[in-house]
């Protein structure tokens, strides 16, 4: 199933998956936020309000494509793609079922950690190309933040890789044992927090930061381009949750086959809800505090986790 056409097919499939996850994600986010805030969230559109987002999508698709006068047109147009494409690509290594992934490669873990980081470019392009102070600040903040948080995130995954002895996601999922969960708990927490920062979501949404920077790196975007930023955010969240449930929560464990896929989905949804829960609970950090948290809290925690795992492996 490899080769050029296989890539095209899986790319399209992942694109559809990201689209669906955006629709459900926005709906879910609004529902979660609503209930936390003693509201119902969207509830008048058909099917519990899910169609609200379909309407929204239609509206965004048909909106005028606005380019700010001073923007650098080429970069401005291409930046959203730099956000979305890496996210879609990264989905390809996720083992959706026990023993099977669209792209079963021995460096899958590395692939997932590396490819979505390309979206830093998207953030920078977007922030730079608008030639707007808010966007510039947002882009710079986003780039700094995403690069910094790569470190604790990679380190946290390293702990599981050490236990499994492989970087192939399919194998890793097969190797996964329930006792790994308590042993790698710190790594899971670090991964969770680092993923939020990587995705520029609250409480680390400094790049967007509506109370200071209005919209951050996508301040001047509208219509479908803005929707692509949203897709990258919700697709990225889905990808991070899928990867997290595969690596830290055992993926399809304890079931296999179709039921296993369901288990994976449930774990993913729960993780996504947890992402949203955190966003709608905490205040936002300041950029310098964010960096300090990365280097002074999360990185040491991840290192401690590696030491623990090392001891456990030695003890085994």
């Amino acid at each position: 199933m490899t080769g050029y056409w296989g890539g095209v097919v899986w790319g399209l499939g992942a694109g559809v998956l990201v689209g669906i996850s955006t629709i459900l994600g926005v709906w879910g986010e609004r529902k979660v936020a609503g209930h936390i805030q003693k509201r119902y969230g969207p509830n008048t559109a058909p099917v519990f309000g899910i169609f609200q987002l379909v309407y929204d999508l239609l509206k965004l698709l048909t909106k005028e494509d606005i380019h700010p006068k001073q923007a650098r047109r080429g970069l401005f147009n291409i930046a959203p793609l730099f956000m979305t494409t890496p996210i879609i690509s990264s989905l390809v290594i996720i083992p959706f079922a026990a023993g099977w992934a669209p792209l079963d490669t021995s460096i899958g873990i590395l692939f997932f950690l590396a490819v979505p980081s390309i979206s830093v470019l998207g953030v920078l392009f977007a922030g730079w190309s608008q030639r707007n102070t808010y966007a510039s600040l947002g882009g710079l903040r986003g780039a700094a933040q995403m690069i910094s948080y790569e470190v604790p995130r990679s380190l946290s995954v390293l702990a599981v890789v050490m236990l499994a002895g492989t970087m192939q996601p399919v194998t890793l999922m097969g190797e996964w044992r329930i006792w790994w969960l308590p042993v790698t708990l710190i790594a899971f927490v670090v991964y969770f927090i680092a993923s939020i920062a990587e995705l520029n979501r609250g409480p680390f949404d400094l790049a967007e930061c509506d109370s200071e920077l209005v919209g951050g790196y996508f301040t001047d975007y509208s219509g479908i381009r803005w929707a692509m930023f949203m897709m990258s955010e919700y697709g990225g969240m889905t990808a991070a949750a899928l990867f997290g449930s595969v690596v830290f929560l055992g993926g399809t464990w304890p079931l296999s086959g179709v039921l296993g896929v369901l288990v994976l989905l449930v774990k993913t949804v729960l993780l996504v809800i947890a992402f949203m829960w955190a966003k709608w609970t905490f205040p936002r950090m300041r950029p310098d505090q964010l960096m300090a948290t990365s280097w002074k809290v999360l990185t040491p925690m991840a290192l401690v986790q590696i030491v623990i795992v090392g001891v456990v492996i030695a003890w085994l």
Partner: protein
Amino acid sequence: MTNDAQGTAAEIVSDGPSVREMVVNVGPSHPSTHGVCRIITHLDGEVVTEADLVIGYLHRGIEKIAENRTYLQVVPLTDRLDYVGSMYNNWAYSRAVEKLMGITVPERAEYLRVITCELQRVASHMMAVGSAGNDAGATSFFVLAFWIREQVVDLLARLSGSRLTYNYVRPGGVSFDIPEDGWVEDLRALCKKTPAALEELDRLFFGNVIAKDRTKGIGVLSAEDAIAAGVTGPSLRASGVDFDLRRDEPYSVYDRFSFDVVVGESGDSFERSRCRLLECYESLRIIEQALDQMEPGRTTAPSIPRLIAPPAGEVYERIESARGTLGVYLVSDGSVRPWRMKVRSPAFTNLSVVGTLAVGHTISDLVIIVGSFDPVFGEVDR
């Protein structure tokens, strides 16, 4: 939106001498300006080196319009001054007119004024505290604070018929007596259950490590500076100055209630915001006492004609609004329209220190500092 002459990214890439300093134009249309304030911010990296406040975007000339309105017609105008705390404006203005006319307000009206204004204080503080949290990104905290405000505003709407611009306190009394549909019981129930909700808000935001990191030590205003700049209200008390007109210069029936004045110490953004939260407990205490003490009676002074024409003279009346000392200076020439009205608005004076406080903090802290002073631009610009 930000394609302003002073704030394009062009300045960042240009090779001129200003290459290291960026000018960010915050407002007048910006989520964190609490209205329409413009702050021209000079940034060194993310650190503010200079913050210029530009006000006047909401100037409607209310003081001038008032000269062309009869004394009763001015009351709805004062609603639009501090639209988060309309009751105070109504009250301060009505007190000024009453002093000019020499009207004695019936006791029940005074109690109703105290009750509505303390309710208003809760509503106003909930908006202030909530939006201060929202500036720090705590959206749910903002909405939960607004839920308390919402309950208060519902009660005020049942009493006065409106949710924001009440037009309730009038020269000579108040416009309506308490409705017969269980209003008092609902108010008592609210007074009973709100402290728990306030305590929860306190833990949710002011106990949170991120919020504390964001607000503590940010925008420290010393007591001397505060007094020198004429800062009043919770913003002043947070700096450790024990001054509250309700206790120090008791007007109306405030001398009949026992309540504490919440005083802070360090005068940073954290204390300014939390001071407001803690004042809500005291307001609820006052309301409960007022409900106990209130007796039936009339709610407007007798024999007040529709067209008030006070004798010539001038008065200055001040009350403690949610934002500080709210004063109304009124000059009458004996006709049916004020000759001159001047409002001493606390938000305006409080805002004057923001520019200097922000220097040295990051742009993220700037919005926190602005939010902690709870400016309402209807009152700043008038």
